[in-house]
């Protein structure tokens, strides 16, 4: 066990340090890593708290609190799968230290178990963020008093610890499949992107229909619960949390057994699996034909595009905001009748333009393409450094690549939303101006934090894209700026009609100009110093 904990310590330490930059002492790194995790924790708690509240408001009066835990359990399972399946490919099967650790006198099952345990800890964190707010909401809103006993919390804690075991087992199986496809299929990235696109389509369908489902829940909650029999373990978990110890134990067994089977089953063939997934043999049938030339900038942009679209981890984590933005715009246009009816019920005084700008800004905040782009160069940075290209050109091409993707999506979604919401041409123009300014500020700020907090020694791209400090700052600081814009809009509204939109526009312009200026003045030196 001593060896296992030593290996686990290495994995956990590397996970903690993964969110920090490459420079600074280990205490500073650990502190910034912990800070980034607190930031993510806050967002998780807030989002799951919001949905639990919405569901509980409808279900508590009819004593169907269990459905909240079923939905949250399914959410935690699906979210955990989304977050860790690709991480498994990198952390469990594609670790850079594979050769080193496999050559040591440690059993391959133990090595795999230590790495899978690191994934479990990540899922545990996610499970906690999803189930704990549901428990708190239940304790405050229940009308049957189920959340008021200590035993309720004890059962909830058991569920919080058990659920990630099932999640981890499934993540490892899917992750192994992804690793296998990447190694054996020539267009592995395309296949992975298609799988993720289907997954995201299901998530969007679920999200767009959530309101209707919640309304329908109150009328037929029991029917809905019965229709969820395919997710029996989640039903057991929910009823278990609410008091049925037998079902809770059945749920725990349902999580422990697959986890043990995966760890011990795959652990026995871990060495073979790692070898097979790593061994990609080059084909020997290429026939050289006449090559074509293009310019430096085009080549560098094409390289950024190849990395973005060819790395599913990068594409789906950094591109999700743009996909959400386009989906929201198109959905608003397609369902504009229902949307206007719903908005009509809420009253005519709603500030639709700033609300649309906030929604668009929120989606754009998640589009952290420039922020991880320097860290993603990592061991390849020497190629750009020895190339006859100035540092400022490299910086602007990376910043420009984000804008090349985000500005067209912003314009399309902005026009769709303006039409769907029936905004006047002036309001539509303001919406586009504000969101494009936000695009500019976001891209420049992302590049700046990418240069200031690089993670050039990351074990794999997962660490950079999902956990690096630059990405966290590149997402959450723009979200805070959005909050500031809303505040300025409200304050401006008290002064005059024109001041309301003008103040946020001035803030965004100043932020974009300031970030661009710092990039011009300091960016090349920052890149040179890496």
């Amino acid at each position, binding site marked *: 066990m001593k060896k296992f904990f030593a290996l686990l310590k290495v994995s956990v330490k590397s996970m903690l340090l993964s969110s920090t930059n490459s420079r600074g002492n280990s205490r500073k790194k650990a502190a910034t890593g912990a800070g980034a995790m607190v930031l993510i924790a806050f967002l998780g708690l807030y989002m799951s708290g919001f949905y639990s509240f919405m569901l509980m408001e409808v279900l508590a009066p009819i004593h169907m609190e269990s459905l909240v835990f079923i939905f949250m359990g399914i959410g935690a399972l699906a979210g955990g799968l989304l977050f860790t399946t690709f991480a498994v490919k990198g952390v469990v099967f594609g670790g850079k230290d594979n050769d080193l650790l496999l050559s040591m006198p440690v059993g391959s099952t133990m090595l795999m178990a230590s790495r899978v345990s690191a994934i479990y800890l990540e899922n545990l964190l996610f499970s906690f963020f999803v189930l704990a707010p549901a428990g708190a909401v239940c304790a405050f809103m229940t009308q049957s008093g189920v959340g008021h006993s200590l035993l309720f919390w004890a059962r909830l804690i058991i569920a919080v610890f058990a659920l990630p075991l099932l999640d981890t087992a499934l993540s490892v199986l899917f992750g192994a499949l992804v690793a296998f496809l990447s190694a054996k299929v*020539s267009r592995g*990235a395309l296949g992975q992107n298609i799988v993720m696109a289907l997954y995201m389509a299901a998530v969007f369908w679920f999200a767009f229909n959530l309101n209707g489902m919640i309304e329908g829940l109150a009328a037929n909650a029991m029917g809905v619960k019965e229709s969820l029999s395919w997710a029996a373990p989640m039903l057991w978990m929910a009823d278990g949390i609410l008091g049925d110890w037998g079902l809770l134990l059945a749920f725990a067994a349902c999580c422990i057994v697959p986890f043990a089977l995966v760890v011990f089953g795959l652990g026995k063939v871990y060495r073979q699996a790692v070898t097979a997934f790593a061994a*990609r*043999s*080059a*084909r*020997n*049938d*290429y026939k*050289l*034909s*006449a*090559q*074509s*030339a*293009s*310019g*430096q900038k*085009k*080549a*560098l942009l*094409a*390289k950024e595009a*190849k*990395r973005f679209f*060819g*790395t599913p981890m990068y594409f789906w984590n950094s591109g999700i905001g743009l996909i959400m933005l386009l989906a929201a715009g198109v959905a608003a246009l397609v369902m504009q009748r229902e949307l206007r009816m719903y908005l009509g019920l809420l009253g005519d005084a709603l500030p639709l333009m700033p609300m649309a700008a906030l929604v668009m800004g929120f989606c754009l905040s998640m589009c952290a393409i420039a922020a991880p782009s320097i860290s993603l160069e990592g*061991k*390849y940075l*020497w*190629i750009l*450094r*020895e*190339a*006859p*290209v*100035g540092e400022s050109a490299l910086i602007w091409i990376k910043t420009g690549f984000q804008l090349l993707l985000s500005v067209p999506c912003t314009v399309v979604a902005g026009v769709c939303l303006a039409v769907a919401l029936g905004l006047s041409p002036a309001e539509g123009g303001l919406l586009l101006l504000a969101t494009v300014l936000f695009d500019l500020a976001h891209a420049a700020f992302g590049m700046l934090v990418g240069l200031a907090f690089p993670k050039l020694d990351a074990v794999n791209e997962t660490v950079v894209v999902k956990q690096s400090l630059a990405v966290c700052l590149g997402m959450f600081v723009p979200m805070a700026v959005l909050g500031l814009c809303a505040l300025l809009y409200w304050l401006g509204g008290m002064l005059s009609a024109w001041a309301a939109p003008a103040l946020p526009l001035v803030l965004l312009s100043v932020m974009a100009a300031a970030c661009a200026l710092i990039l011009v003045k300091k960016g090349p030196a920052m890149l*040179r*110093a890496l």
Partner: protein
Amino acid sequence: MLRIEHYSKTYPGGKKAVDDLTLHVRPGEIYGFIGHNGAGKTTTLRACAGVMDFTEGTITIDGHDVKKDPVGAKRVTAFLPDNPDLYEFMKGIDYLNFIADLYDIPADQRTKDIAKYGDAFELTGNLGSPIGSYSHGMRQKLALISAFIRRPRLLILDEPFVGLDPSASHIMKGYLADLCRGGSAVFFSTHVLEVAEKLCHQIAIIKDGRLVKCGPTEQLVGDSSLEDVFLELEGDK
């Protein structure tokens, strides 16, 4: 071709990796740079290639100051690190075209040179595969091809023989000689003293960041072997 004048490099923390190094590589020369591990060879080569920043001294390549005109200097240089990490998400041919685009190499010239060096290093058939599927030696060969197709005035190589099979090493040595006959220069580090002795016109030996000896190979070696000279200077003999 390459003029290093009073170059020093101090790492954060105060460790002086290279101290007041002055060295000239003339056109047509193959210049070997030898020293023990941590002597400052890689630090010097990286500074010459413009990959690493430095504060003291000047380095000029073909008249271009590496600090004042880095793009001009890099345009006439090709650098190969000891363990070249190449973009794994690209195919071999994509990487070569990427490099060729960065150096503005015309389409017909790159097609001809890729065919020439690809065939010589027996890599043409593999160019359609992702670099992620390449072995260490294949990556080394691809990096070498990417250097040769630039037709550089100065080729800087860090431990170029590591990972290459004997046949590829032999071919590379031939192309290095060809490059020098065309008026270019080669500046490389190595631990393989026999190769350095046979291949280099000039040799410099560096110890603890300081140049301890340099000059034409025949003069430096004299009647003994480079290994003897090296061990004597290093104080191991």
